[in-house]
């Protein structure tokens, strides 16, 4: 069984976010970049678990410049077999999805996995787009997956509950907490990763109709107002007059 895991590189959550002078680009100096946690902990590890069970190959793919090779090597160290980097800086999820699906169409994947969202843009956009480009079913927010032959049974999170469904391979899924348990790469994994293939694929820039106007930092909070510990009147006033919940 062959798996494709789409991976992205994001600033660590604890990063302080600032932008270049034109407000259109993230200032990258001093930031620590990581493999997007949902891609790593859930999508990638699930693909590796399935490969361990059924045999096959786990490929990872990333669309972006060479800065991402560190996190791609990490994916190989965790257990992916081969990595592919589409060498272009995308401006939109549409472009990312187009490059990934063009690549995936040249192979025969049984399952394409990605994290439920990236922790930078929190878009949750790419999975549905890849599925549409490839005309495949898409199941988002999966927290459980069992495969039996060509049939998959999936549990997913929905607002206020869960849903279980059945679908035939191949399909695209986005991975949420619960789908797999994080794996820490060991020394052997890290050594092996250096010898695994990391192919760079040149493509033409597609462009998109989406235009980033600017980024903006939120206004600074005016600061917390501390209330005396027994001042229930003040709290009641806030709940009643400001929040209007009572």
């Amino acid at each position: 069984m062959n798996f494709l895991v789409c991976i992205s590189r994001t600033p660590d959550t604890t990063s302080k976010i600032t932008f270049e002078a034109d407000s259109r680009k993230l200032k990258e100096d001093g930031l620590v970049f990581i493999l997007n946690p949902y891609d790593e902990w859930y999508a990638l590890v699930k693909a590796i678990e399935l490969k361990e069970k059924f045999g096959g190959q786990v490929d990872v793919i990333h669309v972006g410049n060479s800065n991402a090779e560190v996190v791609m090597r990490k994916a190989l160290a965790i257990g992916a077999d081969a990595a592919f980097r589409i060498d272009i800086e995308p401006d939109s999820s549409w472009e990312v999805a187009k490059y990934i699906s063009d690549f995936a169409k040249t192979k025969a994947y049984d399952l394409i996995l990605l994290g439920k969202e990236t922790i930078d843009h929190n878009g949750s956009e790419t999975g549905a787009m890849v599925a549409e480009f490839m005309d495949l079913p898409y199941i988002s927010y999966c927290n459980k997956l069992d495969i039996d032959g060509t049939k998959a049974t999936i549990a997913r999170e929905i607002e206020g509950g869960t849903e279980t469904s059945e679908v035939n391979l191949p399909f695209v899924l986005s991975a949420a907490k619960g789908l797999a348990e994080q794996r820490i790469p060991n020394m052997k994994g890290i050594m092996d990763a250096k010898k695994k293939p990391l192919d760079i694929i040149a493509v033409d820039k597609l462009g998109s109709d989406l235009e980033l106007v600017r980024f903006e930092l939120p206004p600074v909070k005016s600061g917390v107002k501390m209330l005396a510990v027994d001042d229930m009147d003040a709290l009641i006033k806030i709940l009643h007059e400001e929040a209007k919940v009572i």
Partner: protein
Amino acid sequence: MVLVYIEIHQGEIKKSGLEAICFAAQIAKLKSSPLTALVLSNSDSLAGLGNYGVQNVLVANQNIDGSDSQNLCALISQVAEKNQANYIVLSNSSIGKSVAGRLAVRLNRPLVSGVNTILEEGGKLIFRKSVYSGKASAYYTSKNDKAIIALSPNSISPSKSGDSNATVSSVEIAVQPSKIKLLDRNLVKGKIPLAEADTVVSAGRGMKEPGNWGMIEELADLIGASTACSRPVADIGWRPHHEHVGQTGIAIKPNLYIAIGISGAIQHLAGVNSSRKIIVINKDPEAPFFKAADYGICGDLFEVVPKLNEAIRKFKSSNS
């Protein structure tokens, strides 16, 4: 034309659906174009959507399940093409997210998801969304004045803009048999989904043990809130997983978030820092959550929360 897709839940228009309508009405107004709403099942309240700026409601009376994004995409995209919809609005729910990306591909136009505000600058529509876990905003526009917009829940307060009825008619679109077979859908009964809740009471490891949650549930009941929790509390099974908010859980932005016995780690804040008002109850004056709060009470939650509940009960009985 502007097209808005709305989710109907047990015969009722979801709150997030009404928000999507009002947002779409803002676009329609700025573009001086009519607004059409598309729904999957009939509901008594459809004609009343005229009050929110909708001219036409199309009811697709066929057995499409919203969670099958392939079929939903086929439906929405065909309706959009037939009616030449330039902007398509849906809510950024699990259904909305699964179909929005498909629509962007099928109709070849940009997608902006998680949008919370619209503005007009130099004749262009600009959409704002929150990025980097709430640490910044990004503003996007569509170069060809066509887009798919997925609206983040709780971004706007729906309000009526007139009093006319919308025309309700049905639409027949042929779709393929679904490739996804739904086996079971299990919804927590009687509670507002966390992502849509206006008011949230959340508690963390400071609660010491799961048996202590009675006072949290009581507070939530008293103020009509949904309950949430920090990650460790869900991880050790004190609270159900669907209550876990934060970077790895649900991201919420209620009008009011009350955090009790939660330290305010950055990964927790990532999911709640878009809340309009935050009240923090914590016994540690150095708890990082105070820096992100509007109001803070430094004290023992086991004293403060029962006292607060008592005060609310008193307030309610004297005001009823």
